[in-house]
């Protein structure tokens, strides 16, 4: 359709607002309450326009366009009212621009400038919004400056879904408040900072950046978040060699201006006093500072020694899912090309090994089939074993958004996780019964003929086997196994199968089981059965954990594959690398992390080169891990911070970290995107790439300069699925692999060929297997583990960022009130949790979030090393340990003392 704005004939589209059309065409209409991410509200009354043939002055942000509409945006009458409105706002605003943190970044100030208006001369009564004394460490609320545009309230509800804020009071006394009218810490606030981001004035500010420089003083460096696999885009604000703040990147295709509390506020670990700043060599039992030459020469000498004594199989290298693609590539190149072994692995082994194993088998690739952004438009979403509001907060926003738009959201999780608030239904199954449940759903689907026969016919093999396998899983039987009522299973099956497109998201609730790979296969089966693959807003979407866990795997940080999943036992592929690297490579698949650990225990592996990993906290049955590592002859550790592993290390290399390193990360949706060095590293810390290259040189091999762009070009040359990706192309925005040629736009969703019928996938029937360790009399409860919003991984970054520990500073044992009551445990009591393998103490959080019979703990705190408890059982197909289920007993160890302020939101909301 066409409309006219200010005498200009413009094209407009159904569903657009007048403001959108105007802004799209560069017609500026002032506004204070408008934010693209939010539903329009029309509160500030600045974007009012005149529409011919209509009474009054409607707000253009709320006014839908219609064909032939004639709009005037800057008539004299409108401008007069705008001026009045700005004056009114100024009359209720403190005249403190000189010292206001928002100075220069304030829309009200901009408007005052544009309209040349001053603060009123005569004093007016000011609204009674006093500064709320907030005890949260991140967000400053100074409501003296609030203009009540409502953006914070709306973004908290519409985007974050936390609904922590509201407008309270009426008339002039209307103000922003939490529901309890208290501080943010006592509200459902998730401290994501969306409110700060959208606040057009200085009423909401980041506390951590206060006084550290005005907008104009800061250099902006675009980068990718260091925490989880969502890979949100962010801007580092740098002054005098320090990162002083982080802002979200509004242009980022996946995060679209959103960040979680960690992304926004946990950045200052970069400048922690505790960083490793000098190489260390163990001398006389103690780690002593050394020069780089000493440390590198010593390491090269020891490695050569061991190589000479025991050969390459005595070596093991573990690279890191939080280092760049380039570092990981060089690392595995070092292990494979310099040492000569394929025993290289990364912590993906503990998270998504079953995904890589499972999906590669059935579908042909072990990654998220679809893009994050597509989830928002999925009519049905099945979330299995994924507490994504805490583990992948920004992906969770897309799911919440989909639910807001009316999507059916089915949450399958033993715990009453936060996402349940948005769900159509919650299937609270028993820990470790996913296969039974999924088989049950497929049973219903096949019985009711809801499967996509045409798709199955053209794109899947093994339907009859599957049909036979799931036949036994009647809803009634499944109800018995899973504890989910049969009618819920039937309803969920119908909803999923009948949806036009349905997406599945899963995380480690699926993978971290002894049957992890079968779990993944079941999910794959369900999607194939219903044809939910190879199209937009559908698919199978494993959400990867660490910031670059996808990349670490893509780069060949695995014992069986080179970059881009080119198998080491594939002579053709290996030959290509041998030629490129100028060396011969071992055709033998290396040892997986868990197997390598055992080999260390047995003395077969004598040397471990560890880059950015902390196995003592992350490995299941951590006691066993320490025993094994202790047997090593030579342990080289390369990291940013001192870790528990340092107790055992012979050499420590201080490495540069995020914020100091150029390179790329690959996020969970296969997007290769840039991370950038914004500041210089502390002390003697050096780039991972430099260290590896130097070490190689001293071992007598040249593996390149280690320069990031040069390294990437080498990767692209050797990796067909990424051949089309170059630094030039990802300067502004990343590209999703497969991206094979320089003009390939990348791949938003995989497996379009299945829909086209040019390739077949495989249905792999599975059977329910109970967890390796089930509760008994001695250990009557199930422990399931996971992560929390306010911490990340072992806390290496979060513990070293100011404020995070204040919000969530200790481990909590989440336990159902029924169990707690039986054990005489009150909320806040110190409890002892013991398994057959060890025991830890922590405070109890009594909450309905945990189902009766199951407790929940995370592994973020060295003080409470939860993995001392977890089972050593492994999934035989992928080697992943069963973190999600082991038997424990809980006993009270002390009464409630003064509890640290924590914001774990243990109580589920209705």
């Amino acid at each position, binding site marked *: 359709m066409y409309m006219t704005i200010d005498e200009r004939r413009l094209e407009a589209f159904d569903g657009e607002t007048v403001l959108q059309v105007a802004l799209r065409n560069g017609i500026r209409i002032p506004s204070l309450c408008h934010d693209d991410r939010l539903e329009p509200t029309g*509160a500030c009354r600045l974007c009012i326009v005149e529409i011919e043939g209509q009474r009054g002055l409607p707000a253009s942000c709320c006014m839908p366009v219609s064909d032939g509409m004639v709009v005037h945006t800057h008539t004299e009458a409108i401008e007069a009212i705008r001026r009045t409105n700005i004056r*009114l706002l100024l009359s209720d605003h403190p005249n403190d621009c000189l010292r206001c943190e928002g100075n220069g970044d304030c829309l009200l100030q901009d408007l005052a400038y544009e309209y040349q208006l001053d603060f009123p001369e005569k004093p007016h009564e000011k609204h009674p919004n006093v500064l709320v004394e907030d005890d949260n460490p991140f967000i400053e609320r100074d409501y003296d400056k609030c203009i009540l545009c409502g953006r914070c309230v709306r973004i908290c509800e519409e985007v974050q879904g936390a609904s922590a804020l509201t407008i309270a009071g009426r008339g002039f006394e209307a103000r922003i408040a939490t529901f309890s009218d208290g501080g943010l810490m006592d509200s459902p606030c998730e401290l994501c900072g969306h409110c700060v981001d959208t606040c057009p004035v200085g009423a909401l500010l980041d506390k951590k950046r206060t006084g550290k420089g005005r907008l104009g003083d800061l250099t902006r460096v675009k980068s990718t978040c260091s925490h989880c696999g969502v890979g949100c885009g962010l801007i580092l604000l740098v002054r005098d060699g320090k990162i002083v703040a982080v802002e979200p990147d509004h242009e980022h295709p996946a995060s679209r201006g959103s960040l979680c509390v960690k992304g926004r506020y946990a950045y200052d670990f970069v400048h922690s006093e505790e960083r490793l700043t000098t190489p260390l060599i163990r001398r006389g039992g103690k780690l002593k500072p050394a020069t780089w030459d000493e440390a590198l020469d010593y390491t090269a000498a020891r490695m050569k020694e061991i190589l000479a004594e025991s050969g390459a199989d005595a070596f093991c290298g573990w690279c890191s899912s939080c280092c760049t693609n380039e570092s990981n590539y060089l690392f595995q190149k070092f292990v494979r090309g310099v040492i000569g072994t394929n025993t290289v692995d990364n912590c993906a082994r503990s998270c998504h090994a079953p995904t890589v194993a499972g999906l590669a088998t059935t579908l042909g690739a072990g990654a998220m089939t679809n893009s994050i952004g597509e989830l928002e438009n999925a009519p049905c979403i099945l979330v299995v074993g994924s507490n994504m509001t805490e583990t992948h907060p920004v992906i969770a926003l897309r799911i919440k958004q989909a639910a807001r738009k009316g999507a059916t959201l089915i949450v399958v999780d033993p715990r009453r996780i936060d996402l349940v608030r948005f769900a159509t239904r919650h299937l609270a199954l028993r820990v470790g019964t996913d296969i039974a449940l999924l088989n049950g759903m497929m049973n219903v689907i096949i019985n009711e003929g809801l499967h996509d026969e045409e798709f199955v016919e053209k794109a899947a093999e093994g339907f009859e086997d599957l049909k036979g396998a799931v036949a036994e899983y009647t809803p009634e039987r499944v109800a018995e196994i899973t504890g989910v009522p049969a009618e819920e299973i039937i309803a969920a099956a119908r909803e999923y199968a009948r949806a036009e497109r349905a997406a599945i998201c899963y995380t480690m609730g699926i993978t971290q089981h002894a049957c992890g790979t079968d779990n993944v296969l079941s999910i794959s089966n369900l999607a194939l059965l219903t044809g939910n693959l190879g199209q937009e807003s559908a698919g199978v979407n494993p959400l990867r954990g660490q910031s670059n866990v996808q990349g670490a795997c893509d780069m060949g940080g695995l014992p069986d594959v080179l970059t881009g999943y080119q198998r080491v036992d594939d002579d053709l592929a290996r030959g290509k690398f041998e030629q490129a690297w100028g060396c011969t490579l071992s055709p033998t698949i290396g040892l997986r992390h868990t197997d390598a650990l055992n080999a260390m225990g047995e003395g077969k592996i004598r040397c471990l080169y560890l880059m950015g990993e902390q196995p003592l906290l992350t490995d299941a049955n951590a006691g066993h891990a320490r025993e094994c590592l202790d047997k090593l002859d030579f342990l080289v550790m390369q990291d940013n911070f001192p870790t528990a592993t340092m107790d055992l290390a012979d050499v420590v290399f201080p490495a540069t970290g995020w914020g100091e390193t150029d390179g790329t990360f690959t996020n969970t949706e296969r997007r290769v995107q840039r991370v950038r060095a914004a500041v210089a590293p502390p002390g003697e810390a050096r780039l991972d790439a430099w260290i590896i290259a130097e070490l190689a040189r001293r071992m007598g091999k040249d593996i390149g300069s280690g320069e990031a762009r040069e390294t990437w070009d080498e990767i692209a040359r050797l990796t067909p699925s990424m051949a089309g990706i170059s630094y030039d192309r990802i300067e502004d925005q990343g590209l999703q692999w497969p991206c094979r040629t320089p003009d390939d736009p990348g791949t938003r969703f995989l497996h379009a060929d299945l829909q086209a019928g040019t390739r077949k996938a495989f249905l792999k029937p599975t059977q329910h297997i109970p967890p390796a360790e089930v509760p008994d009399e001695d250990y009557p409860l199930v422990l399931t583990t996971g992560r929390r919003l306010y911490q990340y991984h072992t806390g290496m970054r979060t513990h070293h960022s100011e404020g995070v520990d204040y919000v969530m500073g200790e481990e909590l044992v989440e336990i159902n009130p029924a169990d707690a009551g039986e054990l005489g445990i009150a909320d806040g009591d110190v409890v002892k949790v013991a398994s057959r393998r060890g025991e830890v103490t922590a405070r109890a959080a009594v909450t309905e979030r945990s189902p009766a019979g199951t407790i929940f703990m995370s592994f973020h705190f060295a003080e409470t090393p939860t993995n001392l408890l977890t089972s050593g059982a492994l999934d035989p197909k992928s080697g992943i340990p069963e973190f999600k289920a082991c038997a424990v007993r809980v006993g009270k160890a002390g009464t409630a003392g003064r509890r640290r302020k924590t914001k774990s939101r243990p109580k589920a909301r209705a």
Partner: protein
Amino acid sequence: MNVTDYRPLGSPAELAELRAALRQARDPNRRRIRLCTTGCRAYGALEVLERFREELRQSEKTLELEVVGTGCHGFCAAAPLIEVDPWGLFYHGVTPDDVSEIIEASLNGRLVERLLYRPDPASAPVKRARHVPFYAAQRKTVLRNCGRIDPTSIHEYIEHDGYAAFARALTQMAPERVVEEVTASGLRGRGGAGFPTGRKWGFCRAAEGSPKYLICNADEGDPGAFMDRAVLEGDPHSVLEGMLIAAYAIGAGEGYIYVRAEYPIAIEQVQAAIHQASQLGLLGDHILGTGFSFHLHMKEGAGAFVCGEETALIASIEGRRGMPRARPPFPAQSGLWGKPTNINNVETFANIPPIILNGAGWYAELGTERSKGTKIFSLTGKVVNTGLVEVPIGTSLRHVVFEIGGGMRQGRTFKAAQLGGPSGGCVPARHLDLPIDYESLQEVGAIMGSGGMVVMDDKTCIVDIARFFLEFVQAESCGKCVPCRVGTKRMLEMVSAFTRGEGRVEDLDELEQLALHVKEGSLCGLGQTAPNPVLSTLRHFRDEYIAHIEDKHCEACACPELVQSPCHHTCPLHMNVPQYIGLIAAERFEEAAALIKEENPFPNVLGRVCSHRCEAKCRRGDLDEPIAVCALKRFAVEGFGEQVRRPQSPPVRRAEKIAIVGAGPCGLSAARRLTLMGYATTIFEALPVTGGMLRVGIPAYRLPRDVLDEEIKGILDLGIGLEVGVRVGESVTIDGLMDDGFNAVLVAAGAHDSVPLKVPGVQAKGVCDGVVFLRESNLGLDPPVGRKVAVIGGGDVAIDCARVMIRTGAQVQILYRRTRDEMPAADYEVQAAEEEGVAISYLIGPEEILVDEAGEAAGIRCVRMELGPTDLDGRRRPVPIAGSEFVVEADMVVLAIGQRIKLPFDESSGIELAPDGSVQVNPKTLSTTREGVFAGGDCVLGPSTVVWAASHGERAALAIDAFLRCEEMAEPFEYRPVAQSPDICWAKLSDTTAVGRARQREIALEERCRSFAEVERGLSVAAAVAEARRCLRCDLERRER
């Protein structure tokens, strides 16, 4: 069919059958007492009902007589009230003690005379409700069942045609037909905006999407509006039926009634009604055996005014904060839960059943061209008959206020009516004849709104009213949009400042501009209409705002920051009235006299002839009668003034000389004050005598000559130069005076001319000018008086002439062209004239003075008049009745239709005149356009009163002093706070028992008609003290500024 059980009705026929059975079961002779138990509850109606039930139980008369609690009958001022059927007898002010008598009388077919209503004390009692003037002029359509049926009984509703309209729609009309019928009726939404109801239904019916919802907005929130409440409480089923019809027409299956939680009775009745209707199968699935289903829920609103706005109301039902959102989309497209939704208010729905039952044509006959039907107004404020009034749209405001409302309380003046609540506007007196319809109201800056009608009298301050409404809307703003949240706050700040006398006149323009921007810029109806009270009062009463700002004067005496006490505030001389009354009450008479003599240049004169504006505003007057301030002043001065030490003639301390033109009250006051300041002053007087109008205008029986002489002597003795018989403009000129070394001149000439009557025959012999007659009479020239005199006019001069002539033995008749209500002469003067035998004829206009052959007046050809529409000055214009001419015989005709100023100079003197011929002055300083020349009294004010003239004298003296000192006048004259005197008290606090005020002793009527002896003889000591002790001392409530 058994009429006592509640079974679902299976078909429309069963409903009709039930109705017939109910009607048959009713015994037409059974006595039935209908008692309002809703609105009248506050006046003890429940106690009355309880007593009825108890007595009937005891006397076992329940079969012969039933008593039912009903909804509001409308006439709230008569609460608690009952009607007795089958006669429709009307009793008001019923107490439990009256119950036995009512039962007894009703059973025996007798009346309880004492409980009958009298429109005014003098009139005969009215027996039947339909004859009570309050009801007689109404047209009850929506309120048809209110007060008539028991609202808790669905059976009574059905008996009175209840659900018949719904049954008709359901069985005989397609949904589209229903929409058409409602459209054809011309019904417009009664919630305020007046959108055509049928069109609104049509939109929702046509909207895509399902389900559709129907909402009844029963969140009536306008201060002073309670019609929806009355309907919900008194006839809830009419709303349900209206909703059923609407739901059927629109295709809605589910509905909500959103009732404000502050209406507990309404909530109770609605819940009961929903329950009963569900039981009878009139709500729920398959209603009356058809395919139509409708489920109705009630939702309580928590008292947010903004939830009356439909999008905010929807948000509230959805469980969100009640905040409006921008439209489009309109609720008809996307309303409750995003589905097509139709919202109407209670009154609108209650209109539907009669429309469907009687047809659109029947309905469209009521009302005006563009506004059909009736509208309920809740009539409140300073009107006699408050209550609910239902009249055809287009009825005039005057009709509602004066006919139905019985006029103003205590006979005060109608000032304005606030229509449409806080979103509406003030309609001033000059628009009393405005037909109340949507368009006409909009033209004068008001709106129909929900129908609130708050009547205001002259004690209501317009600025204060604007402040009140702003305070309300500001507190109720949801806070969402800037203009409403902050704009109304800033407006409130400005208006509040005005009530304190702060601000500048230019602020009014700023206020108006801001108000317009808030109106145009706000998001929802609340903000868009919030400025209306300000805009309409600025439009109609801007002067009152200016008086607050410039003069710090609140004519209504309502703004506490400006008014210490109404008497002090209203007094042109700003005398410390409460203090001297306090002193009299404390029997400290000399101190009272001293205080009065200090502040008042003519204490003895003004103790007699003051127009005592103070008494009109006296707060005691709200209780019974105002304090007799004037008489108390006379009492103190006359009885105890002698003892007060006279001021010595002060030495001349100032070099400047001042000339004063005119020895009337203004000139003398100014001379006195200036002399006391130390100036040498000289008065030039044209007449041979001093006193001006005091002497030549006021007859001796009102102001004895000795009193006047003594008072003037006291002033002149201060050392004031006097030259009588000097007519400035002739022997002396203003220029001459200036040349003679006078540094300042005060022109204080009086209004000694008359307004000529322009009819044939005025030149005849025997026709005289009233002012001239009085002057000659008062100068002792004994002008001739006829035998049969006709005085034409209704002012003080007319009355004075009449009373003087009566004393000469003449037969006197006054002819006045309006009614006594409009008469400018003081009421007590008119009364005195009548007592003395003056005949006063109203609504008579002279057309010609008949002249006999001798050239002498023989009579007046008159025409009868009637009052037409309101004039610009707020008085109704007299209009001649054609063919009603008649002749009044008279041998002398006195023309007294008005006085005129006679100025001793023209504009060549450099002194500019106003268009009406008065001297143009700066109202604060009384300075004319010529430097050094000031003017005051009648020549500025036009014919005015002694106290105003004296006040001008005082003001002029201060202004001249400031002028000569080359200073600004320190502060406005009005802004003269007085010391509070809490120490003046007496043993007993003032008695608030209603008692009449003290009357002065008067000489016998026969004596007074024969002589010029003073009529009033003052108060006795006991009477004066008692009178003073009636004073409520409202000044003590106020803090010192």
